[in-house]
């Protein structure tokens, strides 16, 4: 290398080296900063304490409940009715008097409950005898002094939990709980209980073929209504799953999203012209409108919802107005920015033909902005169907409220799963529809 090259190269080289040093600093500094932040979060969010707060039992019930259900067979030691059978132990899942599932047979004070895999529970009066294959016979005799437990010889296995007043036996085929006042037998089943028809419906426990032929036949199970109408009615008003109410709540949620988005777009459209630099020469109008948009956006949907909820109460109107107010701000900002970016040539072209201002807007501006606006509106429509769910959960209304209620009970996880599936389905449907409309309208709507 010659001297000249070194002389001119040194500052150049130094510059490059400085840049490299900076790059290296960023390459190591950014991940290090992120790691440090995560370390801070780890302690700020008390992750080590999570193990204490987390409840594996809850997780287990949740998982088991989403795909299975249990039927309670209860022997009341006191009281007039000796046996009651209820799905999930709920009143709305109770078997009517005289109706039993085929694995239970009741004979006055005595009963036989067959569980799977050879397990069996026999009641003789209030005495319970449970046959456990591979272990032997377990007997409990409840009295006012407590529960007397008799087991086969040998150590007490860990799946039997016994105290003076309470015995609990957990087996793969089912559970038995004995207290002084009652004995409960739980048998587990796969699936969602009573999803189509509840027990009091004449259509309960019938196969698809049978239902189909019933719907076709003239013979009426419930006199006065056709079988098909009866089936639809019994399904729609299913007490356990409340399909009708769930559908209504879904409708409310979609309504909120639709009204909020479209209403906001309609209000924001004229205002955005007033807020765009190239359409409104008055600075004060422009400036104050922009601040109004900013304010509408900055007062979050959360706060709007609270204010509206106080005056209108819970329901779809409150939700749609909350979305409408927030999104008027958003659309106002987006639309006026889009208007400021319109191509002037097209307007000038229309003007050169002698068009009046209204015609200039109609043929020079509208065709340019329609696709942009439409795609933004449709995008927000989809995103607002999610917001509507959240707003519903906050103040009560729509599918969000149903979700919160179902979770609050802490045991109807199959219902939670059902609602979650419906919500996801709703959002995906809105996404598909808005995407389809976007393609359709924007391709054909520009002309």
């Amino acid at each position, binding site marked *: 290398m010659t001297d000249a090259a070194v002389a001119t190269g040194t500052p150049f080289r130094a510059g490059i080296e400085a840049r490299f040093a900076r790059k290296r600093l960023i390459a190591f500094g950014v991940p290090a900063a*992120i790691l440090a*932040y*995560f370390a801070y*979060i780890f302690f*700020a*969010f*008390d*992750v080590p304490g*999570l193990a204490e*707060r*987390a*409840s594996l039992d*809850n997780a287990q019930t*949740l998982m088991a409940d989403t795909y299975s259900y249990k039927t309670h067979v209860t022997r009341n030691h006191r009281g007039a009715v000796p046996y009651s059978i209820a799905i999930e132990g709920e009143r709305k899942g109770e078997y009517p008097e005289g109706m039993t599932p085929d694995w239970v047979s009741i004979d006055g004070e005595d009963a036989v409950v067959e569980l799977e895999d050879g397990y069996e529970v026999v009641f003789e009066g209030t005495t319970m005898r449970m046959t456990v294959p591979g272990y032997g016979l377990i007997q409990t005799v409840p009295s006012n002094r407590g529960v007397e437990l008799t087991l086969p010889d040998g150590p007490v296995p860990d799946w039997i939990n016994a105290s003076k007043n309470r015995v609990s036996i957990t087996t793969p085929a089912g559970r038995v709980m004995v207290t002084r006042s009652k004995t409960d037998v739980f048998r587990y089943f796969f699936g969602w209980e009573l999803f189509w028809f509840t027990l009091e419906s004449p259509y309960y426990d019938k196969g698809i073929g049978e239902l189909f032929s019933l719907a076709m036949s003239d013979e009426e199970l419930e006199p006065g209504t056709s079988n098909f109408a009866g089936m639809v009615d019994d399904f729609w008003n299913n007490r356990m799953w409340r399909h009708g109410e769930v559908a209504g709540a879904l409708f*409310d949620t979609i*309504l*909120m999203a639709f*009204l909020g988005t*479209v*209403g906001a777009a*309609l209000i924001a459209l004229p205002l955005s012209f007033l807020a765009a630099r190239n359409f409104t020469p008055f600075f004060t109008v422009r400036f104050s409108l922009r601040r109004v948009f*900013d304010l509408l*956006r*900055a*007062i*979050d*949907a*959360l*706060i709007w919802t*609270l*204010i*509206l909820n*106080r*005056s*209108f*109460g*819970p*329901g*779809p*109107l*409150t939700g*749609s107005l909350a979305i409408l107010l927030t999104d008027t701000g958003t659309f106002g900002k987006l639309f006026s920015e889009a208007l400021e*970016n319109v191509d002037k040539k097209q307007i000038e072209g229309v003007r050169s033909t002698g068009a009046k201002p209204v015609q200039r807007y109609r043929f020079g501006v509208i065709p340019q902005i329609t696709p942009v606006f439409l795609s933004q509106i449709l995008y927000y429509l989809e995103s607002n169907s*999610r917001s509507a*769910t*959240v707003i519903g*959960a*906050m103040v009560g*209304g729509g599918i*969000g409220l149903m*979700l*919160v209620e179902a*979770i609050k009970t*802490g045991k109807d996880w199959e219902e939670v799963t059902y609602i*979650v599936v419906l*919500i*996801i389905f709703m*959002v*995906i449907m809105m*996404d598909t529809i808005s995407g389809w409309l976007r393609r359709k309208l924007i391709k054909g709507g520009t002309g």
Partner: protein
Amino acid sequence: MTDISASSAPSPALREEYLALVQRRRLYSFVLLVVFVALLASGFYVANERNAGGFIANIHQFFDFPAEVLGEAFEKAAEIPALLVKFFPSLVETVNIAAAATLFGAMFGAVFSLLSTRGLALWPRFTGVFRRVMDTMRAIPEIVIALVLIFVLGGGPIPAMIAIAFHTTGALGKLFSEVNENADMKPVEGLKSVGATWFQRMWLGVIPQVAPNYLSYALLRFEINIRASAILGFVGSGGIGYDLKNAITWGLGKYDEAMAIFILLFITIVAVDQLSSRARDRLIGRPL
């Protein structure tokens, strides 16, 4: 113009047909508009009917609540600064939930987006699978995951963070993969030719190209996530939303607290909004 029309003047029949077509199109547009307006009007009517309180009957109450809150806040104006300090830690928690969720979401989103972009994917066969996974993650509202996780993990910021991060992964993953599609493949091919692993190709060949756009989208998401985190706090997990819920359900007597929280939230949202739009302008230039 005149020359052309003179030499090939449209026949009157053609002209009439054209005008009829235009007229029919106008009629269709008009009918569509009427249907749309009717749909909107009936929608508002139904919403009004299904709501607890009607619009006309209760519109005069619209300012009652803000008036109550403001009234009490003015009465106790001297206490507001102290309350601002009191609720500041909750605000920090809310912002932390949003920030951590955005970071996690952006990291997972980046990986998912690289795995689902044709030409960059590690397993080209599974690009569709990763896309569907991201779609599903995006479709699940945060509140669903948050509520279920609160049941399992107990209250606190972690359920909210996981819920928001989950949704953010899907949302950012989609935007990132759109960015990836425009990335220049030459550095990647260059790295491949010297035997770089997939991770090295992505880290050294793709990420430096797309980082500004990634960052810009992540900042936008951060704004959204702050709002989401406040709302999730309101529904059950920690942060400033939870304090707000307590103050609101208490009602009169605690509206000064509600006001302080409103102020904190408002300032945060505006500040983050401004900062992130400034930063985004610098990162990728004005036209977004």
